[in-house]
């Protein structure tokens, strides 16, 4: 029961914390409108070119990308790096709980705080563009939601693992920024992976990238995709990430000198 109480308290307090940033929440939602821009570009291109997807397919694909992004945004590396550089990790290390749970709670709580803004924006999109509206199949919705949760977990684990390098580097966020470049292209955020050459697709399906956006989006909009393989690859990457993370954490803590603390 203690664990339930801990989870509840963390979520309630961090939800209150996130709601302190009312104006910022709307701006953060809008700041992730790259998929909507890509939607405009690709829908326009589809009308004039020969693609496997129609303009309407592109619109649905990218609004689904927008939705998936809203639930999978992760910023833990920026917070963790600041904690290390400014010595703010010290008070957290003195508590009998792994500091990661503070970050997890803040991220999960932020999803709830962001939810009404995201729903409002998606609703507005369908009001302006009613032809694009669709209902995912019940199974597509269930698997899609599960894939979104998994995508968030995987993205969090990967970024938190990169964050561990802050113990040795002054700016671990540089790793994330390099990684983001691959994420941008290989996750399906810039273009659906169906448009990529077959050889490229054959390789990237074994990387974590497609599972962070393309996989849940495909399940939501109904693009055929191997569901079992998708979840297995995600689980394997999660496991690898956790192993690397804990290994780096143990070494990092030894190296930590409590800078500025």
């Amino acid at each position, binding site marked *: 029961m*203690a664990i339930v*109480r*801990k989870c509840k*308290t*963390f979520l*309630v*307090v961090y939800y*209150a*914390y996130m709601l*302190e*940033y009312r104006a910022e929440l709307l701006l953060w939602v809008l700041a992730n409108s790259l998929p909507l821009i890509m939607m405009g570009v690709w829908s326009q291109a589809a009308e004039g070119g020969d693609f496997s997807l129609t303009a309407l397919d592109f619109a649905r694909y990218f609004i689904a990308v927008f939705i998936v992004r809203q639930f999978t945004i992760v910023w833990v590396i920026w917070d963790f790096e600041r904690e290390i550089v400014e*010595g*703010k990790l*010290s*008070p*957290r*290390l*003195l*508590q*009998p*709980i792994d500091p990661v749970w503070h970050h997890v709670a803040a991220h999960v709580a932020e999803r709830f705080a962001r939810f009404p803004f995201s729903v409002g924006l998606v609703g507005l999109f369908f009001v302006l563009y009613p032809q694009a509206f669709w209902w995912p199949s019940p199974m597509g919705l269930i698997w899609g939601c599960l894939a979104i949760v998994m995508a968030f977990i995987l993205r969090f684990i990967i970024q938190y693992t990169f964050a561990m390098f802050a113990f040795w580097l002054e700016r671990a966020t540089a790793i994330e920024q390099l990684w983001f470049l691959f994420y941008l292209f290989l996750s399906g955020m810039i273009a659906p992976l169906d448009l990529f050459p077959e050889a490229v697709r054959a390789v990237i399906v074994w990387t974590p990238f497609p599972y962070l956006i393309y996989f849940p989006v495909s399940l939501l909009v109904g693009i055929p995709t191997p569901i079992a393989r998708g979840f297995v690859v995600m689980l394997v990457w999660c496991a690898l990430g956790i192993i690397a993370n804990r290994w780096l954490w143990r070494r990092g803590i*030894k190296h*930590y*000198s*409590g800078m500025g*603390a």
Partner: protein
Amino acid sequence: MTIITCDHLDKVYPVAIKEPGFKGTLSHFFQRQHRHVQAVQAVSFQIDPGEVVGFLGPNGAGKTTTLKMLTGLIHPSDGQVRVAGHIPFRRHTKFLEKITLVMGQKQQLLWDLPALDSLKINAAVYNIGYREFQHRVDELSEMLSLAGKLTQPVRKLSLGERMKAELLAALLHRPQVLFLDEPTLGLDVNAQVSVREFLREYNQRYGATILLTSHYMADITALCDRVLLIHQGQLIYDGALNQLMNRFAPFREVKLELTQPHQTSDLEQYGEVEEVMGREARLLVRREDLTQTVSQILADLQVLDLTITDPPIEEIIGRVFQSGKVT
């Protein structure tokens, strides 16, 4: 049975060195060089349960580094350390539940939320039940005169109130050992006094052990019978505060107001004359001769007023650090 034991504790830090200027920047980029700084060197001491010990030293002497090793935040390069029966850097849950570290210039409270929200998180972390949580918050907020302040966002609190709220958060789990690093830093005199009174009361009520660093000597004189002096990473004194005072300030200052002016030569027989200004004079008299000398002055001279004071403790401690040794 001691609660804190340090035995030949060492800490060596690698520090990057960079020459000024463009050339220095380039060589720092391509070939980073480090030198090793011995922050703490063979520090040994023991503290018994319930003691309140002052930990003094100039900036960079190794106080905070020692506190970090005692709380398990950093690994010692060499030596042994045990706190409350645990090896700190293993960071066992049982150990973390017994200690706390308060740093005057660092905060653990969530800035944009009322302190009560951060306290709820702490209660969950330390498995403190709701009723017990309420009881402890009421008790500590009364001791700290924080009633009504805990529901205001932390950023709206004054510096003194914030520090008190930090103390409350750090003590909610009733730790046995308190490490306090400059807990009154930047506070006004009233706030300093109330923090000091709180710490004394907490120590008496719960028998907690306190190791305290402060640049305000009033904190040390009000709370600590025993002091540890650290200088350039080495412990140079471990003992009673008044013994240190006696050793470093064997004189007391006698201020005289006389009915008529006297020459310096008239007063030299009583002690070292610091100043003579008209009818007023200041003399330094050895502690052991004080009673006899004062009686003699009162018998020989027509005195309107006489006061005896200790030299300021800051001056004594400063003298110790300047000499770098106590013996």
